[in-house]
């Protein structure tokens, strides 16, 4: 608990939490929402494309979109860290918060695998095997992001999960 109190008492955490400035808490939370929309949105769109492509789209070319996904992830890591520091004693005691972080990490691992799969798709000798693998990864990615999203929203409603 001392560590959490220390995190909350740092100058940057105090500024994010207590400043009346639009650039403090509201902007951090808005950046987190925009980052999430781009990160998860583009990721979901690519997964849906992989799951729907018949006849197959030249998926190797979607690699370029991953730059935007990684940029959005960076925005969310920075804004998320600042938001977490500002409310460390509230968030880091919630089991649902750890579920969110666990599934975000899992989603990013699946996303990396998906990017590798898409990049090497053209080199696969067996196109059907490659497509099947990409489809499995897409379903995994959609599932892990959905759980992370639900857990993330529920961090705002701890009383719903643990009673009043």
């Amino acid at each position, binding site marked *: 608990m001392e560590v959490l109190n220390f995190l909350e008492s740092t100058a940057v955490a105090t500024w994010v939490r207590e*400043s*009346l*400035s*639009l*650039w403090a*808490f*509201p902007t951090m*939370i*808005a950046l987190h*929402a*925009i980052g*999430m*929309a*781009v990160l*998860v*949105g*583009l*990721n*979901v*769109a*690519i997964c*849906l*494309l992989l799951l*729907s*492509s018949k006849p197959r*789209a*030249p*998926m*190797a*070319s*979607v*690699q*370029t*979109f991953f730059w*935007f996904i990684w940029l959005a992830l960076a925005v969310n890591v920075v804004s998320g860290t600042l938001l977490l520091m500002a409310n460390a004693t509230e968030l880091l005691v919630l089991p649902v918060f750890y579920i969110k972080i666990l599934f975000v990490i899992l989603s990013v691992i699946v996303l990396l695998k998906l990017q590798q799969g898409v990049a090497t798709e053209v080199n696969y000798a067996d196109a059907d095997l490659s497509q099947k693998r990409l489809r499995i990864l897409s379903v995994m990615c959609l599932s892990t992001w*959905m759980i992370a*999203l*639900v857990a993330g*929203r*529920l961090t*705002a*409603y701890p*009383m*719903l999960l643990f009673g009043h």
Partner: protein
Amino acid sequence: MQALTTLVGHYDWLWPLCEIIHFMGLILLVGTVGLIDLRVLGIARQLPLVFLYRLVPWAIFGFILCLLTGLVFILGDPFKTPMDTLTKLTFQIKMLFVAVGLINALIFEYYSDFRQLSQVEGFNDEAPKKIKIIAGTSLFVWLSVVYLGRMLPYGDSFYFIFYW
């Protein structure tokens, strides 16, 4: 309307569930529309647009999810009247941006030759400048909608924009 307010007040989980569905809707909308916009702007040129147009029904589905849950937020809030929300400047600007986003999408869908031309498989021509302006506007508008939506709980805090 009173029945909806009572329902939301009675079931604690209904409001967070609507928020989760609203987030999922915006992820579908921003992700699929964003992917098409980025492609029109020249990203991943090897990927024919005809493949990406398969995502349009998902964008419409996402918009419908946001619209329905958005109505719950306006009409079913047990602590606010609909007028409280409708008279908020942030909400009004958000709705203005939603309208611009929809009109922009309709112009692209029904009044541009490019949409018809790019329907052909193998079409990889660069989009004309006016079409790129439509795609850029779409990206800006939908990300702004996410931003304004997240700012709604903080009131019309634009007044604090120059306060650090």
